[in-house]
């Protein structure tokens, strides 16, 4: 159990670290186009050529012939680690041109192939993951903050505050959320800068989702409000704020943690869905959703299967979060002594 948790947390940390350092790991700029290589298949990595085996991985250039892409075997290009490439700002701190791997210029390395503009799909998956996962996490934070606030107020003060807030949660829970999300998106400006879209998107997704955490939090607050230590603290004259901060917040942390692990993948999916339909983050900024939206055309889907790369990334992310949610739930919400 403990090792499983540790492995999952390590996997999650590795995933987020990889996305955070996308600029370093990705060999290319996500918006840099290479018009000579549209829809190029994934670059093949070789260790063996006519001269025998080599210790260093190398690639060939793609040449576009009548029968599609063929490898130009006349010249091989070794894959360099920690090589120099396009300039970027590492974590927003310092400028550098160092990339994890790359090949010398006339050749290019596209591990997941390229899209219709010749942009490197591998780099875009990493950069797109930044946007999608950040949207998921930010929306989760908003939903949990709003939910916890309403839940604590409703549970702690009771009476008409409780009733009106719970009526609100019922309203939001019975909304057909995807329709409503589309509807709300329809009322927001369509052509705005990607940063503002991102901001609006996370706010909308987060604000629609406050109801369920609010209900869960309220339930816990209701039961912990009547605990003896809370009653004691109040009879000693502790202020409401003090009681909530010292005695009630620790109780709801477990639920908030489980909700976070459940909500993050769900909101990543929401962002992906909206962007897939062209209502989310716009081109040229990459997000897993808008990368997938080209697959709405059958011809692209049939011929260029490597463009499904974001699907793989999404599946990995969702599964890690789902497994973690199971573990967190069994450890925090129903802790067994001696486990």
């Amino acid at each position: 159990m403990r090792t499983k948790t540790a492995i999952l947390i390590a996997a999650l940390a590795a995933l987020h670290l990889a996305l955070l350092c996308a600029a370093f790991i990705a060999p290319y700029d996500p918006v840099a186009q290479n018009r000579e290589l549209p829809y190029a298949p994934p670059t093949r990595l070789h260790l063996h050529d006519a001269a025998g085996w080599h210790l260093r991985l190398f690639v060939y250039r793609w040449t576009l012939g009548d029968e599609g892409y063929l490898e130009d075997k006349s010249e091989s290009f070794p894959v360099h680690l920690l090589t120099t490439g396009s300039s970027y700002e590492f974590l927003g701190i310092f400028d550098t041109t160092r990339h994890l791997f790359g090949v010398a210029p006339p050749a290019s390395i596209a591990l997941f192939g390229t899209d219709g503009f010749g942009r490197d799909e591998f780099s875009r998956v990493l950069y797109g993951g930044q946007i999608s996962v950040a949207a998921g996490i930010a929306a989760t934070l908003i939903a949990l903050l709003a939910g916890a606030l309403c839940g604590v107020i409703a549970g702690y003060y009771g009476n008409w505050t409780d009733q009106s807030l719970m009526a609100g949660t019922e309203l939001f829970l019975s909304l057909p959320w995807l329709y409503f999300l589309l509807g709300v998106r329809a009322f927001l400006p369509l052509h705005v800068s990607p940063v503002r879209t991102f901001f609006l998107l996370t706010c909308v997704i987060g604000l629609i989702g406050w109801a369920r955490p609010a209900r869960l939090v309220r339930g816990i607050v209701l039961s912990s409000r009547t605990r003896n230590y809370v009653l004691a603290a109040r009879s000693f004259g502790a202020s409401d704020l003090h009681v909530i901060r010292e005695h009630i917040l620790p109780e709801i942390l477990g639920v908030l943690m489980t909700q976070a692990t459940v909500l993050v993948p769900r909101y990543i999916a929401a962002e992906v869905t909206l962007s897939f339909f062209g209502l989310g983050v716009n081109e040229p900024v990459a997000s897993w959703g808008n990368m997938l939206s080209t697959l709405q055309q059958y011809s692209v889907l049939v011929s260029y299967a490597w463009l499904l790369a974001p699907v793989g990334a999404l599946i990995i992310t969702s599964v890690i979060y789902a497994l973690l949610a199971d573990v967190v739930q069994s450890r925090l919400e129903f802790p067994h002594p001696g486990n």
Partner: protein
Amino acid sequence: MRYLGRTLLRAILLLAGISILCFLFTEMAPGSFFDELRLNPQVSPETIANLRSRYGLDQPLIVRYGRWVKSAARADFGYSIAYNAPVAPLLWGRAKNTLLLTATGMLLTWLISLPLGVWLAARRGRMLDQAFSIASSFVVSIPEVVIAVALLAIVVRWRLLPLSAGPLHGEGISLRTHVQDLATRMLLPVTILVFVESAIIVRHVRASVLEVLGTPFVQAAHSFGICRARVLFRHVLPAAASPAISLFGFSLAGLVSGSLLIEVICGWPGLGPLILEATLSRDLYLVIGGIMLSALFMVGGNLIADLMLLAADPRIRTGALDAD
């Protein structure tokens, strides 16, 4: 009877609340349908102002809401600007296709998952059960849009299903070819729908049957020597029905809204593509109409589930569960 009245009242209040919420959002929205016109230098601001007043968009929020309620009472649900027609017939034309798809999907889903869930619960811990629970937790954790695209990719890549095009309700063709055409077209969206939904429902059915299997009265029944099949069907299933009935209500509730994604991805001419287009062109009342229609099914589905629970579960009739 009081329970019924209370649930009904709550459903109506919910619908009213949702419509008010929709209108509040339209008020906050900075854009409108006429934004594109405004960019056109040949259209004068007066024309736009005229158009706005013709559709009543220059009125204050309360007046617009009042008019909308009146129009809803006439079963029009407002006026679509893009289609230049009342919203309700537009929605209904598409909703028929959506319902055809989702009702078929739901029927198949329940036909598959109910027996499967009970069977897996009865064989708990065996290989097949474990394999299924791993597979289903995998499916449940993956976003629906990803599953849909991945299945579509598989189907298209290996030409598993014919992807026919053309109008859905063709004229001058025999009933047989019509049904055949419809069936081949529905195969893919229905498969995706069943795949996604049944993973969830089987898990719930299995869990609720397992919960009852662990109770003392089932152990007692076993120790009396009643045969396993009889215990399962006569004693366990009725007791495990309540969660399944609520779940059935959820399925009903999702009849209109559950397939939006799949319709758009598979190109099924249902409500999904209509609402998506309306969203993109900001056809205000059409969007609100779509939300209201799916909310109607949501609330209605839950209402039906409540009523079925009332009929099936004596604890609700006597109010034993209202103690909290």
